[in-house]
């Protein structure tokens, strides 16, 4: 069963492993990214770095959406990692399997057009619009870096931005 989508441009790293993979007893992680899916070196590094007890799948957007139903049917818990709001929205829009899914907005690096939300999260107006659209589509959006932190909503962070 797919438990969560995590949006984090660092993809699979220590905070994700310790907080979500271990915390939710995740047996399989699906990375959906056109860029990573065609980069053999990055795929190899991600596969070498993962614990042997966990399955890792790396797919481009089209293959990723096509694989969701099968992933959801596996007996183990799984989660999806995306690099940005655009890909996350494309998944939420793209498959009924993800209806009502929890979307964890974790990390996004600074950029010229991005507002700082926390030490690891910066979002542009465009990102915020896409996250709002995920909510409109029924996704449960929660904004936090670590599972020990209080989950914030989009409405919470909008008060702090600007």
């Amino acid at each position, binding site marked *: 069963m797919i438990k969560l989508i995590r949006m984090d441009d660092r993809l699979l790293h*220590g*905070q994700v492993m*310790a*907080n979500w993979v*271990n*915390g939710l007893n995740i047996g*399989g992680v*699906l990375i959906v990214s056109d860029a990573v899916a065609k980069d*053999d*070196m990055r*795929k*190899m590094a991600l*596969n*070498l770095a993962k*614990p*042997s007890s966990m*399955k890792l*799948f*790396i*797919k481009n957007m089209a293959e990723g959406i096509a*694989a969701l139903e*099968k*992933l959801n049917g596996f007996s183990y818990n799984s989660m999806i990692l995306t690099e940005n709001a655009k890909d996350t929205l494309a998944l939420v829009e793209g498959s009924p399997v993800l209806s009502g899914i929890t979307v964890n907005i974790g990390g996004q690096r600074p950029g010229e057009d991005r507002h700082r939300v926390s030490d690891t999260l910066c979002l542009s107006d465009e990102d915020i619009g896409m996250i709002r659209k995920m909510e409109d589509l029924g996704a449960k959006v929660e904004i936090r870096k*670590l*599972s*020990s*932190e209080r989950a914030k909503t989009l409405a919470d962070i909008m008060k702090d931005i600007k």
Partner: protein
Amino acid sequence: MPKVEFGGDFIEHIIFTSHGSLAEGMLSAVKLILGEDERIRAYSLSVYESPMIIAEKVGELLAEKPAPTAILCDITSGSVHNNLIEFCSRTDMEVIVMTGMNLAMAIDLVSKPSSVPLRQRCEEAIQAAHEGIAFFDRDIVEKALHNQCYDEL
């Protein structure tokens, strides 16, 4: 996730100890990954101090706030370890000492729910510490690159 509530009763202590400032560094790394955790303390040793100082600090803590305790030491048979190992013989509370502290060990121990017995979590953390040590070179990386395959999904 393990969010420990403290109401005056200390559930347990997790103590990082080391030569130099490795213990403080370990605490800073664990905080970055898992967030604040009131169970954890870091005691380290500067070149000018007697190794007994860490044992004294641990002794004071356990006297003041008795609770099951896991102590992580940087290296087996170092002076820090030698001075702490005697705490294992205490009969009034459970004290477990582990050596070869690394970040994988610390994260594993801190992130498991405290409903699991401390001893079991410590044994699992030792396992995680072993698994967290690996060797990579060009040979291994090239083989991995060549053998990439994607299974059932």
